[in-house]
């Protein structure tokens, strides 16, 4: 019976349907609604309530493997922070960081339109700085908290003495908050930054790492977080600076609905099969 086949589809057809469903919004954005969740609101509230002139550290440890997931978050946060009057110190604890930070400023396929600090009236070295990649994982987190001048020069080779912003940022005690975009090593960051300096710690995490973060947020070790692309899209909506994430949200919506649809279809098939087996 042809009806039965519907519940035991060849994998190829599943893949084809998924590919088509997720391609539709890329070719023609649908503009489906986005509703901000609690954690995104928490992050937005924290960042918008930063006092004037406070030092905020962005740990741009995203890797290209996570693709649009972390990069869109980084860009959304970067745009918002640049529009505020805060001292922004960017640093990377992942080797691919420098490449993706450059892509953030210059624009790219997984990063969206370019971010121009001058547009927000920000000057390099006074309002924001990029210190480059610091290797070493947990030991580096520890060392950076102890001495923010450990790199001696910024990513572009300028000595830190020549950058006025760095006078405000010498140790972890000077930070008002830190936000980390990372796919791993979250516990180590909590241990070295939140536990040692009591700095409010925010995270931008890929969907995979989110489950273990809920309990850290409940215990207050982590202030709040952005989860995956959806966090970035919600943040873009809240901060009113629409970028790539919002347009990719439709892909996520349709993709997840497709998967749920097939799970239900598979279960209907399973149910029918079982009833037939009983008879």
């Amino acid at each position, binding site marked *: 019976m042809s009806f039965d086949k519907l519940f035991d589809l060849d994998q190829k057809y599943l893949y084809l349907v998924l590919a088509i469903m997720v391609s539709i919004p890329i070719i023609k954005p649908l503009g489906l609604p986005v509703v901000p969740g609690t954690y995104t609101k928490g992050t937005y509230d924290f960042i918008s309530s930063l006092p004037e002139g406070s030092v905020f550290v962005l740990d741009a440890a995203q890797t290209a493997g996570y693709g649009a997931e972390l990069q869109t978050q980084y860009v959304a946060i970067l745009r918002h922070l640049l529009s505020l009057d805060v001292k922004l110190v960017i640093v990377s604890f992942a080797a691919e960081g420098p490449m993706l930070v450059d892509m953030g400023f210059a624009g790219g396929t997984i990063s969206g339109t370019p971010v121009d600090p001058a547009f927000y009236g920000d000057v390099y070295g006074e309002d924001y700085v990029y210190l480059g990649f610091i290797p070493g994982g947990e030991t580096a987190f520890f060392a950076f908290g102890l001495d923010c001048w450990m790199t001696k020069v910024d990513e572009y080779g300028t000595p830190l003495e020549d950058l006025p912003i760095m006078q405000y940022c010498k140790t972890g005690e000077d930070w008002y908050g830190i936000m980390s975009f990372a796919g791993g090593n979250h516990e180590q960051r909590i241990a070295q930054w939140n536990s040692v300096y009591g700095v409010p710690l925010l995270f931008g995490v890929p969907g995979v790492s989110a489950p273990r973060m809920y309990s850290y947020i409940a215990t207050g070790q982590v202030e709040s977080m952005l989860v995956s692309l959806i966090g970035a899209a919600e943040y873009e909506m809240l901060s009113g600076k629409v970028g790539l994430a919002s347009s990719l949200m439709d892909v996520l919506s*349709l993709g997840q609905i497709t998967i749920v649809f097939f799970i239900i279809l598979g279960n209907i098939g399973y149910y029918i099969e079982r009833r037939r087996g009983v008879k």
Partner: protein
Amino acid sequence: MSSYDDSIRNISIFITIVIGWFMILEYFVKAPAINSFAGTISSISTCLLATFTIIGVGNLSRHHVKNILTQGRNWMPSVVLIVSCWIPLVIGIIGTRKDPTYAYLYNSLYLPTSQAFFGILSFYILSAAYRTFKTRSLDSTVLLLAAIFVMMGNAPATSIIWSGFAPLGGWILDVCTAAGVRGISIGIAIGSVVTALRVLVGRERRHLAGRE
């Protein structure tokens, strides 16, 4: 031969014990000299990990060169492997990763391939979910329902159908997932303490290919 191996194994286990307990005690102690020495050990280990790749890449190349020479199965792809390993390696060592040729190869060939492997996961998730997520027992039904509601909650578009998906999904994540994950994490942590302890008192030698 085996007694020689054993004596080296004993020395290694001794080193493990010394380094391990030093690192544990270091955590409780506030002394710049000791803390920075611990940092040094950690840095040395990063370097050793890097130099260990000599064995890995050496053996990988040896196997594939052998395969090419004997014209075994898949020897043509083996040629690709050797070329794609050693040419970028030489460029990368002489220049750095900032070398334009290396950056070009990395950005236009390696990165897309790497991302494609990530992207393949979406397809696999779909087929795995379709095949295995069945309401076989109470356990799997709970798993299935939690997954469906959270997914519908994560897809903002579903708010058109029912605005309750997002809060319900959020509730499952905040309460059920938090509780379940917290229990699992504590369990995993206790398990890893035990495994670590066996190594740190020198009772575990199987990872060094030793007999009990």
